[in-house]
Each structure stands twice: as structure tokens, then as C-alpha cells.
């Protein structure tokens, strides 16, 4: 067993976890909102990209941006429907409503795309790089670099721009933000659109690793949950570190102990973490 190879696998896995989780992190941190349809949005992102590739003959590098835009538009519609509980910060209603959306997406997707596993192929998936004993694909490189760039840009926008300050102000106190002339409802829509678009990008980069199914999404939402909580709810830097940490843990645990128990072990770590450091990595 090659430890270096496992470390690379871990980083690749971890960048995927972080990428899929980033939308939720921002949603929770910036808007104090939840979206339990996150996993199904991931599924939709992958299937939209797959559909425009297979049905319309669009190439992968255009199909992913199309999926990102499509899911962003879906985000506008969803947020429009949920605006009332969102403005009242009614988390219980939102939990149920978004769970419902998830089921609708799953049912709708299986009607639309069928129930069979499909191959969502990126041309970079088969472009391998070998250096001595270790190997990875250009898709892995793209995912890693894409994740780091997205996190970097997001951090800059949130912390160094007026738009970021507006998002942070709404996160802290949406009512007070209104007195500053800020339309909090619009900010919520923006954040929600970002979440949907980011998860579509995550799907576009990560989903080609294995066959896609309209029933997928649950595993993704569970791991997203682990990353978001470990990172310290709402912390961009924390969730990046948590994503990589979870990826490395999964790769090493799978290689050294047992791949069948990695999810269970990840939750064990989460449990231990929550006892020792209840506010996550980013806690001051």
C-alpha cells in the first residue's frame, strides 16, 4: 500500500466533499437557512449536465456551466416559493419544505431521466497522470484546483467586498439590515442561487467519478452535513479544512482499516468532535 497515493486520493476526495458542501456552508452561515434538498440538487446538477451532453451533443466543458446556470435559475424559483418562511427564519418549516422539494426532484428526475445508472463522462476522467508509483487523473486536478479557486474567490468576496459585507450583515441581523436600506429578501435569493449553482458545479466535477442515478443524493447530503458541522457552521475556511480532513480520513481509513465502515467511522469522528469542540474547527 502506498501512503502517498492514499494521501492524494484523500485530497481529491476531500476537495470534492468541500466543493459539494460549500453552498450549504454559505447558506447556513450567511443566511441561517437550511436546504435538505441539497443532495437531490447535486443529483439534478449531474443529470442536467448528462442530459445536455447525451441528448443535445454538447461537450462536457459547456454542459457543466449550463447545469450551473440551470440550477441557479431553479434556485430563484425555489427561494421565491419559500420566501415567507425564509423571511420569518422559520427553520422547522424550511426543513420540511426542502425535504419535500428533495423528494419531488427525485421523483421528477426518475420520470424524466429513468431509473437506470447512467454514465456521465468527463474527457479528463480518462486522462491519467502517472509519476512513479502514484497516479491520478486530470479530472482530479480540475476538481482540486476548481475547489481551491472557488473557495479563494468566495473568501475574498465575503470578506473584502461590499457585497460580502451585505451578506454578512444579513447573516447577523436581517431586520437591522433593512434599516441600512438593504433588501434582505434579495440577499436570501442570491445566497440560495449560489448554493444551487455551487452544488451543480460540485456535481459537474465530482459526479463523473462513478455512474449516476436519480436516487443518489442522500450520501452527499450526509457527508455535506459532516463537513459543514466539522468546519464550524458557516465558516468557509473551516469547511475547506474539514472537507480535506474528511477526505484524508476516508482514504486512509478505507485503505488501512476497512472501506465498508468509512461513513460510520466519519460519524464517530464527528461525534467525538462535537463533544470536544462543539462549535467546530472555526470556533474562536
Amino acid at each position: 500500500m502506498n501512503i502517498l497515493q492514499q494521501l492524494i486520493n484523500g485530497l481529491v476526495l476531500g476537495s470534492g466533499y468541500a466543493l459539494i458542501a460549500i453552498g450549504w456552508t454559505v447558506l447556513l452561515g450567511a443566511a441561517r437557512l437550511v436546504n435538505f434538498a441539497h443532495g437531490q440538487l447535486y443529483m439534478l446538477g449531474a443529470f442536467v449536465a448528462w442530459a445536455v451532453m447525451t441528448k443535445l451533443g454538447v461537450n462536457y466543458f459547456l454542459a457543466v456551466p449550463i447545469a450551473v446556470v440551470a440550477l441557479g435559475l431553479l434556485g430563484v424559483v425555489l427561494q421565491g416559493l419559500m420566501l415567507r418562511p425564509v423571511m420569518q427564519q422559520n427553520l422547522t418549516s424550511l426543513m420540511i419544505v426542502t425535504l419535500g422539494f428533495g423528494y419531488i426532484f427525485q421523483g421528477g428526475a426518475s420520470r424524466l431521466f429513468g431509473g437506470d445508472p447512467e454514465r456521465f463522462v468527463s474527457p479528463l476522467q480518462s486522462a491519467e497522470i502517472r509519476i512513479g508509483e502514484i497516479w491520478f487523473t486530470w479530472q482530479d486536478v480540475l476538481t482540486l484546483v476548481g475547489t481551491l479557486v472557488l473557495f479563494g474567490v468566495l473568501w475574498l468576496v465575503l470578506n473584502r467586498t461590499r457585497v460580502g459585507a451585505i451578506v454578512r450583515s444579513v447573516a447577523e441581523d436581517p431586520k437591522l439590515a433593512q434599516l441600512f436600506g438593504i433588501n434582505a429578501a434579495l440577499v436570501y435569493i442570491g445566497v440560495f442561487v449560489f448554493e444551487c449553482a455551487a452544488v451543480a458545479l460540485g456535481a459537474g466535477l465530482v459526479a463523473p467519478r462513478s455512474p449516476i442515478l436519480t436516487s443518489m443524493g442522500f450520501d452527499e447530503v450526509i457527508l455535506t452535513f459532516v463537513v459543514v458541522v466539522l468546519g464550524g457552521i458557516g465558516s468557509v475556511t473551516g469547511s475547506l479544512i474539514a472537507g480535506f480532513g474528511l477526505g484524508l480520513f476516508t482514504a486512509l481509513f478505507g485503505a488501512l482499516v476497512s472501506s465498508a465502515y468509512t461513513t460510520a467511522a466519519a460519524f464517530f469522528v464527528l461525534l467525538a468532535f462535537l463533544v470536544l469542540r462543539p462549535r467546530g474547527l472555526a470556533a474562536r
Partner: protein
Amino acid sequence: MTVELEATGLSVRYGGNVAVDGVDLAVPTGKMVGMVGANGAGKSTLINALAGWSRGTPVVRGTVRLGSTSMDGLPPHRRAAQGLVLVPEGKGIFAELTVMENLALVRPPADPTGRHLFSMEEIHELFPRLAERRHHKGRMLSGGERQMVAVSRALRAAPRVLLLDEPSAGLAPRLVYELLETMRKLVDRGLSLLLVEQNVRATLELVDELYLLERGKVVARGPAQTMRNDPRILEAYLGSLTG
């Protein structure tokens, strides 16, 4: 005398409780109007209703006009953009944003006709401490400094009418006078201001007109000179002057 802000028949209910009951109120252009009353008289509820704002879910009736524009049905961020700017009681700035970020959240109005745009230089002239503190986060500021940021933020919005809810709460008496004197200076330069205060003595010294609110109703109103000798004010708030 032109009226900058006018409310007619303003009532606010929370569930079955009537907090403000049929209030008529006017803030003349370039004047400072004070609103005093005991705790629970409905002062904050009233000033929040003018801004269309609340942390609860009240039912508001009546009309509010800013100049010739009706504010009825406008959400608070739209009223703020029109120049009806509220500094609420208590938390008035963002704790996790720096002083600069707090001030930069506010956009100057699209149509600044007839409104004074306060430059950062003017703000720093009014509140020199804020220049030193500009990179400090809201939570690192003292109560007085927070109030200065809250007022500055409102000024950056180029208010046609500034609504100020108990700026003195939690401040040392010297700071209260400093802040209120600064507000008076701004009114003398043309700002229209409605001030809700518990500190009746300080308010009477500075305002042009005074309203007395009791159980959600205006029970007395008039020029500050007259109100100073109003038996209800003397009895309830300035007892030590006569006694």
C-alpha cells in the same frame, strides 16, 4: 412652514394589544421634534411604525407621508432609500462588521435632490473618534462609539427625516448631552429630526416641539417653551424643578 414627515391616525396593534392608538404627528422641515413618555407608553412602537419596521409582527393602520410621498405599504428598506431613516433603540450596528464596513453598507440615494449627502470628512468632523476606530469591529466599540456609528450610518443615507430612538440608552450623561448637541447642530443646518427620549430634561432643552405620549396616545403637544410649563410634564418628569 412645510412639513417633512406627517403621520395621520397611526395605530399599532400586537395581537389584541393596542400599543399606539390613533396618533397624529408632524415633523416640520428643519426642526427637531421630541417625543417623551413613560416606559411602555408606545414611543418605540410609534417611531418604528413610521419607518415601517419592527422586530415583531404588528398590525399598523393609518398613513405616513414623507414630503408629498406616501410611505404606506413600503417595506423599511424602501423607506430608508426614500430618506426616512431610523436609528433603532439598542442594537443599531453590526457587531461583526468594522466601522468602515458598517458605514459602507449604506448607499447614497439615487436621487439626492433636496437631500444633504454627508461625506466621510463631515462624519469624521462630527465624530472624530470614528476616524481612529474605522478598522475596529462593532463588537469592540464602547456604547457611545456604537451610537456614533449608528447615527453616522443614518447620516450617510442622506436622511430627509432622521428618526432617532433613545440614543441616550446606556450612555453616560456627558455623552448623552454631547450626542444630542451634535444632533441639534445638524438640525440647525437643515436636518429634520424626530427624537424619542426618556431624558425629558435634556430633550426639552434641545427640541423645537415636544409630544407627550401616554398609553399609546398623544396627551399633550406644543412648542418646547410652552411644554416646559405644562403641568403634566412638570408633575411627571420635572418634579424637582418646582419642588
